[in-house]
């Protein structure tokens, strides 16, 4: 009788262990990774609320707009990473001095472009629709930018964020109606460098000329 109990005890334990292992293999991989889609969505929504407050503030002068845009970019975006990725393989060829000059000019250009379009964003609403994890270090936040008056067609926007371990989420790309801002800027920058015999300094010259 005792032998039967022992066997039963062993069998039930093995069954339990087997079931636990089976459960582990059947579980989707997602929950085992740190799901940071919520954090990413919250960051984008927070940024859009701040951006909306800024564009609706008609009392802002040019310098005020620049300060707001600059603050938004440095607070929510990985500007250094974007600048680096926007030069493709040519980043490796740039000297330390060229890199720092380029990064400063790149941020200036981003601010200038955003300020020039500041008024176009007035009256628009952002609504996140769906978010998804891309690998274990990126999140894509999908949403819609719409005009409540119906004057302008709504646009589908995807925000790509990095969610690196131990670091806050940061925006690295915006895709509007299937056009990636990073991809477009990268192809434009690379075209300038290639047109000038692969000289990274040509991009700095072009950025400086645009700023003047």
């Amino acid at each position: 009788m005792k032998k039967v109990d022992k066997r039963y005890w062993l069998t039930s334990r093995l069954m339990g262990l087997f079931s636990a292992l089976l459960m582990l293999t059947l579980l989707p991989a997602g929950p085992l990774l740190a799901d940071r889609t919520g954090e990413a969505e919250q960051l984008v929504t927070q940024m859009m609320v701040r951006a909306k407050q800024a564009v609706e503030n008609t009392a802002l002068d040019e310098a005020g707009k620049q300060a707001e845009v600059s603050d938004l970019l440095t607070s929510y975006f990985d500007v250094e990473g974007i600048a680096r990725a926007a030069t493709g393989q040519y980043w490796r060829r740039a000297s330390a001095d060229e890199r720092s000059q380029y990064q400063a000019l790149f941020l200036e250009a981003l601010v200038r472009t955003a300020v020039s379009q500041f008024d176009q964003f007035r009256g628009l609403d952002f609504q996140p629709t769906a978010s998804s994890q891309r690998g274990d270090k990126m999140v894509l936040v999908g949403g819609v930018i719409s005009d409540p008056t119906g004057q302008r067609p709504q646009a589908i926007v995807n925000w790509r964020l990095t969610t690196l371990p131990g670091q806050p989420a940061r925006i690295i790309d915006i895709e509007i109606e299937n056009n990636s801002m990073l991809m477009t800027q990268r192809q434009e920058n690379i075209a300038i460098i290639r047109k000038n015999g692969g000289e990274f300094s040509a991009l700095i010259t072009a950025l400086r000329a645009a700023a003047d």
Partner: protein
Amino acid sequence: MEKNALFRFVLKFFPLTRSRPVAALVLLPLFALLAACSSAQTDGPGKQLVMEDRFENGNRNIYALNERLDSAVLEPAAAAWRQTLPDAAQRAVSSHVSWTGLPATAMNSALQGKGENAGLALVHFAINGLTLGFVDLLEDEAERPQKEDFGQTMAAAGVPSGPYVMVPLLGGGTGRDMAGRVVTAFLDPLGSLTGVSASNQLVQANLPLSAISARADNFDLINQVKYESLDPYARVRSLYYQQREALLADRVTAANQSAVDDSLFDSFLNSEAETDQ
């Protein structure tokens, strides 16, 4: 295979002699040759569209010409259009221009086996036809037909994209898409569907209208590219390829679907991999 057969059948039996035969006879073989010259690895059904600009120097010259033409004609006309026409009238014209393209979408959807989209295009064409497309009576419908042109049909049939070519007045596109534009104008799907022999005159009359309307609809965006880009030609080319790839992948209205491959972002995830493309 079945799609290829259908594609050849339509090319053979569609009424090809309807309009503008000389221009088509010259342009079509030229663009088709360009597409055929493309290396087999560029793309095909289900493959990524690869940017190929072997005529870049010549293309840049034609782009500069197009930009001068835009500054001289289209931009001032579009600016006047925006200033003089009320928003509702601008939307009506824009809607009418889109409506005239629905038969082409229906035909190309059918050729690609996208029956649902073909049906949607026909329904929208028939119902909005009550107002000649000037009023979108189905504006609130969630399901809208996705644009399908002959370039997309050729891509679905496995025709390679060919190099990027910039054409005076028409703008830029791959050899395949330029051939597609010629074929669409040549086949005249609007006339075939309505049975109106004068439909080509309608389309021709619409051409300047649609050019001004499209320029006005995208006035700020085009000016931003034209005046604020570091390299407007490279930017236009990049935007074209991204848009085209989305169209070929039927990704036009899909939210939460990325337009770019995740590998583009490797440099953000790994400081050692600074970018490799």
